[in-house]
């Protein structure tokens, strides 16, 4: 139960951080926090409490489900590539407008 509280708090703080941060790099970091919380949620959901590693060695049945784990590895890798893409775009934005402040960027967009 404390783990579900942590997951909910992490989702809330992740969205709050993404929405309120002025700097683009900070938003990207909170996107990563949000992603980590989703991964934790999936792993928590499919873990039976006296679980064991899913390796066949005569353990009587109480295995952790290996399928969500395999999916979550994919999610981590995709999250890393999304982050790399976002940072690449941030470099382009910086060279175009000279700032990474959300407020200034939106003002520049309004003026055009």
């Amino acid at each position, binding site marked *: 139960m*404390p783990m579900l509280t942590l997951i909910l708090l992490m989702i809330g703080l*992740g969205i709050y951080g993404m929405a309120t941060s002025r700097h683009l790099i900070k938003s990207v970091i909170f996107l990563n926090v949000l992603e980590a919380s989703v991964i*934790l949620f999936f792993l928590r959901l499919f873990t039976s409490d006296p679980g064991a590693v899913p390796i066949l060695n005569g353990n009587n049945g109480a295995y952790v489900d290996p399928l969500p784990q395999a999916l979550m590895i994919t999610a981590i890798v995709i999250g890393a590539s999304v982050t790399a893409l976002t940072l690449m775009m941030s470099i382009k934005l910086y060279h175009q407008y000279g700032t990474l402040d959300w407020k200034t960027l939106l003002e520049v967009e309004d003026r055009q």
Partner: protein
Amino acid sequence: MDLLLSILILTLIIAMLRENDSLRLVVYFTGFSLLMSALYFLYHAYDVALAEIAIGSAILPLIFIIAIGKQKTFVVISRVKDDFMNEEENSPGQTLLRGFAHRYGLKTEIHFEGQTRLKGAFRRRNADLMVIKSRRDGKYIFLMKSSSVLHYKMQRIVEGHRNLRFEVVEEDQIYD
């Protein structure tokens, strides 16, 4: 164990919320990734923990630091304001400096100040290059810090121009 890790993770997230410096944010994020992989380990997801350590605390901070490093500006302080170097973007001095900064992917920022004290101006204003005019022979002098990586490249460019001279100074040297 769960509870301890949860409290540490929440503390790190709140520290990230209150931090505004990008590089420090990246360091906090590295610690956050390590704690998250410890949590994955507790849920018997050893392969996920391994991937998270490799990606979250080695590759991602590297990408972040490279991206932050690309967002630097090349600050020029000019005491000269004549037909070599003025506020027009196509004056010869500005063309030279902007072309130089553009080649290394930097954004140029040029300030014109007649009365800047030269002592400590590099550290105080975080300048990369200063332009002054020599009283003796009328040449324009480009001053750069000796700690700057780019000063070898700038020196090579300046050597091709007859009305320019290049000098390297220490960071808080008196110079006038």
